[in-house]
């Protein structure tokens, strides 16, 4: 492929004309950039490892945190991330095929494979947007602080909220009114603020309503922080016992018993740093993918205009290819160290 090595004597090598690496300036500089960028990502992942190693409590487990699929719901541990990995690997393959076509001066081949690469890149960025949105909004159950002070994450199927029936009038809602809109949002907001009590919700306008909700199923509580009786590492609590403990705390009418989703201060999955590293590492990688797609589009325009064909070689495609493969390379490590381990 590239860089056909030929034997050179020392005089030619150091004479200033021949490159010791027998490669062009541009490609060498791209490698220099990639090494420095790899150091940045290496630093980020090592920092993540540092935090995990000195952390005292239970660290979130990837397959418990990331187990949702678009349109399918919960119960698919890590499948979505695996799909994202596969998409990125495939787009890396189409890129290397574009480079190969370039070496044969096959302009149409380069165009075809670069378009495929760009589509793959957009798919990956889109997947990441979905995952961020899911991470930020969180699960329907959230993380619950039990009555003994222990904290638990909750798995299972959340019974749908049908409506709220007002039993005590407030500023807007009259007694007997049935509210059917924005239920989940109201419910979670009230849960965080401690406005849920004995099966009733206090709405924004001060009215009190009865919650008409379907039963949950397959509920499972996994302890993540020690309490007086429940400890980390205990067997998960299932079914009715789990429901009793969960709703005892949720309907206690006290604030801050439940956390939904994630922001930079807290998240339902684990310690604060977990959310911060998630946002920074996947965000920084996602930014690289996004810039990669933009660069690929610019180069594709150059290919279509025939700029590189006239030049006699498609090295620009090879150089952007290097960057694109690097993005895939980083993801392989993020996938292992952030999601799997």
């Amino acid at each position, binding site marked *: *492929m*590239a*860089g*056909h*090595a030929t034997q050179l004597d020392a005089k030619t090598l150091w004479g200033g*004309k*021949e*490159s010791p*690496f*027998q*490669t*062009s300036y541009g490609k*060498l500089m791209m*490698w220099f950039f990639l*090494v420095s960028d*790899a150091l940045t990502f*290496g*630093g980020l992942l*090592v*920092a993540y*490892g*540092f*935090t995990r*190693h*000195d952390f*005292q409590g239970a660290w979130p*487990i*990837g*397959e418990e945190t990331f187990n949702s699929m678009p349109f399918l719901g919960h119960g698919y*541990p*890590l499948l979505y991330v*695996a799909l994202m*990995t*596969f998409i990125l*690997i495939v787009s*890396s*393959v189409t*890129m*290397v*095929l574009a480079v*190969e*076509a370039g*070496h*044969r*001066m096959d302009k149409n081949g380069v165009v075809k494979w670069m378009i495929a690469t760009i589509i793959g890149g957009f798919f990956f960025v889109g997947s990441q947007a979905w995952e961020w949105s899911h991470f930020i909004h969180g699960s329907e159950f959230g993380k619950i602080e039990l009555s003994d002070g222990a904290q638990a994450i909750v798995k299972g199927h959340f019974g749908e909220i049908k409506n709220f029936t007002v039993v005590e009038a407030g500023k807007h809602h009259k007694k007997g009114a049935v509210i059917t809109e924005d239920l989940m949002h109201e419910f979670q907001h009230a849960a965080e603020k401690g406005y849920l009590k004995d099966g009733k919700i206090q709405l924004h306008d001060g009215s009190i309503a009865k919650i008409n909700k379907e039963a949950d199923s397959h509920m499972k509580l996994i302890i993540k922080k020690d309490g007086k009786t429940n400890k980390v*590492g205990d067997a998960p609590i299932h079914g009715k016992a789990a429901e009793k403990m969960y709703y005892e705390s949720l309907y206690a009418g006290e604030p801050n018993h439940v956390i939904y989703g994630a922001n930079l201060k807290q998240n339902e999955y684990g310690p604060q740093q977990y959310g911060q590293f998630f946002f920074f590492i996947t965000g920084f990688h996602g930014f690289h993918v996004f810039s990669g797609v933009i660069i690929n589009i610019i180069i594709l325009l150059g290919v279509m205009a025939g700029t590189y064909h006239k030049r*006699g*070689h498609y*090295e620009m495609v090879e150089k952007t*290819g290097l960057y694109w*493969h*690097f993005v*895939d*390379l980083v993801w*392989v*490590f993020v*996938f*292992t160290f952030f999601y*799997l*381990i």
Partner: protein
Amino acid sequence: MERDDLIEYSLHAHHSEDQGKVIRKKIYFVTILLTVITVLEVALGAYIKQSSGAWPYVKWSFVVLTLLKAGYIVMVFMHLGDEKKTLRYFILVPYILFILYLIFIALWEALEIGSAWATYGGA
């Protein structure tokens, strides 16, 4: 003025139709390999829990499989394997040395800090 004494290495990268076939075959082989490794990793992660006794082995096999994947991406997709040996080592050796040192020093320090917290307490 255009210089004619510079060597266009970029032109050395061309290959023929037949060579292309061989290269593409290698690319497809690596694609399948990377996919199989990813599927294997997810299956291992789904079936063996972190609380199980086999987890440490699974964890280390993740690291080994990841390095294998990374090796194929760098050597074949980024075709560092086809570059001159000096360039290959010039890129890889300093990086690997530095990152190994960083991993060692940071994780060791983290374990010590962790045990200090555990011993002397604190919020």
